[in-house]
């Protein structure tokens, strides 16, 4: 159950032919990680490399093809990694263990149906309303700006966004947005977003950087009930 946000990435370098009990060490490590409920782990066979023994292992050198480096990678939350490291330290008799800070952008399991009731987060009381004004024809890296903004807000875990199309207006660009029958349309578009002040302040710099001409308006609102399901926590019961 990997969550979005900061996490640790562990990389273990071993030799393909290093053995642990009856099988290869990398298999033993993968079995251990699976038994501990690690979200996922990958073992990759290298093309060539050298390590602590200062001997080149390469698939070109036939006699040493069995001795190729294997890299095992997995990403987990920091407390989980702390829990696993002592055992891994014990297991890796010959090799290298490295840990680095990382950020999980998306952890999705499409094929798995949520088994438990999805965890929900409720927002009540003090909240902020952000309205973003732009033109319908505004674009951002090849797609329409309002679509790009909604996608970005979704990625940033903002509770919700609604796009409204106006029928007339003018603003930062100075020209009047009017409906035309055959001409390309550039009607005003407004995206309204409600979430906690912290969520919106975090999203603001990213949204602001996407807009060329426009207006962002904030107001304080009272959230009566704003419930959102957290999809990444849906399989927490597995």
């Amino acid at each position, binding site marked *: 159950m990997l969550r979005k946000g900061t996490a640790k990435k562990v990389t273990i370098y071993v030799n393909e032919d290093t053995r642990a009990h009856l099988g290869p060490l990398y298999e033993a490590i993968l079995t251990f990680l699976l038994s501990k409920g690690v979200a996922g782990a990958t073992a990759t066979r290298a093309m060539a490399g050298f390590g602590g023994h200062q001997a080149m292992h390469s698939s070109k050198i036939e006699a040493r093809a069995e001795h190729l480096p294997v890299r095992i990678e997995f990403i987990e939350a920091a407390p989980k990694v702390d829990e696993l490291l002592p055992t891994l330290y014990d297991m890796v008799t010959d090799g290298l263990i490295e840990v680095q800070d990382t950020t999980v952008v998306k952890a999705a399991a499409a094929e798995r149906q949520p088994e438990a009731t999805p965890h929900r987060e409720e927002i009540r009381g003090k909240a902020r309303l952000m309205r973003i004004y732009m033109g319908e024809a505004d674009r951002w890296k090849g797609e329409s700006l309002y679509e790009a903004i909604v996608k970005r807000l979704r990625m940033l875990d903002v509770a919700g966004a609604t796009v409204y199309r106006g029928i007339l207006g003018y603003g930062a*660009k*100075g020209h009047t947005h009017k409906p035309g029958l055959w001409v390309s349309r550039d009607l005003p578009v407004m995206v309204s977003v409600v979430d906690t002040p912290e969520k919106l302040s975090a999203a603001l710099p990213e949204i602001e950087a996407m807009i060329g*001409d*426009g*207006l962002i308006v904030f107001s304080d609102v009272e959230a009566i009930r704003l419930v959102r399901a957290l999809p990444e926590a849906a399989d927490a019961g597995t």
Partner: protein
Amino acid sequence: MPEPEPARMLRLHFVESDRHGGKPLYEAVVERCRELGIAGATVFRGLEGYGESAELHRHQIGRHEQPIVVTIVDTAQNIRILIPVLENMMQTGLMAVSDVERIRLERSREL
């Protein structure tokens, strides 16, 4: 990044069929705002609603009774000047003002 500055938001609620000076009221309002040098105005059409006259405003063929909302964001000073002007143009409807913070992005003009 530009800092948010305090501003005021004015919202006008009326119906699409309201007219002023021979044209739809929402067009007249937007034009008047432009003449007065107001930063911007946006007109939205609602799907359904009801208001002062207590009759339901919804789209019917041949009738334009859908609700209209005009939102205007500018400095408190400019909104104060604008309110009496628009009040004279509207017969029925609602005006609401609220405090907001705004960030104006005018990158194409800066270039």
